[in-house]
């Protein structure tokens, strides 16, 4: 049902079961162009599993995921990335032994085949783009530093930068501020506001203050199903959400 609206992602009747346990069940979710959606929910609600299915890491048992009208459920991970879906993992996932520059360079969307890599030459466009991204993620002074030596927060930013350089139309971030200092959180919120221009973003987050600061719309998951959806204000006052969060 790819209607005339600006839907980027349509998740319908999505179900996955691990040995009979349904981590996600009959889930529906629609994300618009340029929307920043935050997914919240208690532990085990199926948030990360949902992202895993969108990016192809976990294959759903039933249901469909359409991205710009393309069915993702049968595509391999690298093919999904190439259609424009980027994924940040919960723990900073960067190449510790390479420099910041090289981390970004490897994420630049060209020469992704074996022969392309062998024939690869560093072009000025690439270098320019790397510098541009490095500035966005506040690492312009650290380009030649080995990425393993960055602070935890900087590693998280680097990974976000590695996704940005891919120019994804849908960016998924799993707990981007986990383990960050207060100041780093503020900077990250600023960064997110900046990068969601021109693309859709799905963020999983636990930190409610942070969610309030960035979210356009919030989806609350509980036991693999959508419990509530809407603006932060509406969701916060929804009795079922309060029940799930405080009730036990």
């Amino acid at each position: 049902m790819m209607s005339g609206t600006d839907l980027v992602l349509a998740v319908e009747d999505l179900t996955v079961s691990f040995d009979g346990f349904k981590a996600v069940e009959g889930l529906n979710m629609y994300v618009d162009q340029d929307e920043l959606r935050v997914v919240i929910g208690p532990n085990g609600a199926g948030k990360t599993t949902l992202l895993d299915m969108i990016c192809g890491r976990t294959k759903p048992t039933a249901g469909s995921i359409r991205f710009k009208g393309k069915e993702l459920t049968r595509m391999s991970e690298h093919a999904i990335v190439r259609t424009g879906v980027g994924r940040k993992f919960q723990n900073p996932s960067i190449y510790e032994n390479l420099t910041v520059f090289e981390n970004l360079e490897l994420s630049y969307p060209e020469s992704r085949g074996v022969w392309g890599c062998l024939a690869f030459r560093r072009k000025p466009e690439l270098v320019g783009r790397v510098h541009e991204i490095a500035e966005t993620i506040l690492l312009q002074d650290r380009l030649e530093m080995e990425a393993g030596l960055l602070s935890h927060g900087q590693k998280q930013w680097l990974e976000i930068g590695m996704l940005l350089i891919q120019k994804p139309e849908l960016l998924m971030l799993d707990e981007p501020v986990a383990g960050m200092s207060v100041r780093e959180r503020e900077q990250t919120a600023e960064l997110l506001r900046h990068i969601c221009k021109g693309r859709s973003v799905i963020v999983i987050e636990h930190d409610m203050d942070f969610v309030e600061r960035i979210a356009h719309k919030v989806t609350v998951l509980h036991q693999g199903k959508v419990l509530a959806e809407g603006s932060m204000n509406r969701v916060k006052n929804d009795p079922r959400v309060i029940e799930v969060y405080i009730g036990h």
Partner: protein
Amino acid sequence: MNGLMELFGRRSGIVPLLILAALILVVLPLVLEPFRLNLVGKYLSFAFVAVGLVLLWGYGGVLSLGQGVFFGLGGYAMAMFLKLEASDPESTAIQTTPGIPDFMDWNQLTELPLFWVPFQSLTFALIAIVVVPAVFAWIIGTAMFKRRVGGVYFAIITQAVALILTILIVGQQGLTGGINGITDLRTLKGWDIRTEQAQYVLYYVCSILLIGSILVGKFVLDGKLGRLLLAMRDKEDRVRFSGYDVADFKIFVFCLAAVMSGVGGAMFTLQVGFMSPSFVGIVPSIEFVIFAAVGGRFSLIGAVYGALVVSWGKTMFSEAYPELWLFLMGALFISVVMFFPKGLAGLWETHGRRLRNILSRSKAPSPGQLVAPVPPGPERVSGSEGAALARGAVMAERRSE
């Protein structure tokens, strides 16, 4: 000059390669008598496999315990051609069926098997030395890596493949020469390969091909593919979710390592004059891994020294105490893995650096020093030059720790 500077900053510089080239191309041929030089030639043919393993195991993170398979495929392809040339109707006139290899005649074969026929052409044989290992590796690699089989499982499967191929060769005596292998090889296009002069020529061909293989390996590692392999070893998922098909890259290094092994096998056949299943199975495959481990599995050049030192040790030691050799080699492997995970190349890196520091203190600044003291400061150094400089600095820091 700039290019030269860059090489100094890289993982394995040009100097160690020049030292190795001088050793095997000049020093050894001058000091060794022909018989010993031929032995070194044999060891160098093993070094091809070790160099391939550095790429595959050290950088690709994939341990294959079945590289003997590819060594054997290359070696047998060469041996089949040489055997056919040695089996012309005149020299095999006493056989029931003249004109076919002797072992076929002993096994009551009366006709050359179909898969032997194309090996009458040297061109075909030379192509087969490269293509057969590559295709075989591609098949195994695709079957394994596309299904995400890796680590210990991959190692065990390659070991099983080595065992199966050995059993196949031994069992099909009439087609392969069985346990004895293909022996009594004489000439290559009429040129007697058994003479001292021919052995010299073959030694040089082998050495130059080996240096060529190291350069190919260096080219691969210094480029984007090398950085990607490092990235894969560190965070495979991140690479996958950056839009790369990780399996393709593993298949590629596996094929490249296989081709190198195949060339090594062919050079072995030419220099030693026979090929047998004892260079295909599990034991030789593990020996190849030990060569790479002792030499240093992150060093293309170290692998050559590993192959030379361990093989030489084997020849010396097993002449005196043949039954103890296997135990000694096991102990060697364990101690290298436990105490010197970077092998000889690691020792060179730590102690060699100290030595060079002492030497350079009394002399003018060396190129190494020009690279080292660049701080990873905030000023922007553009492009690859900057990256190379920074890496030089970081490496220097690490080594001095």
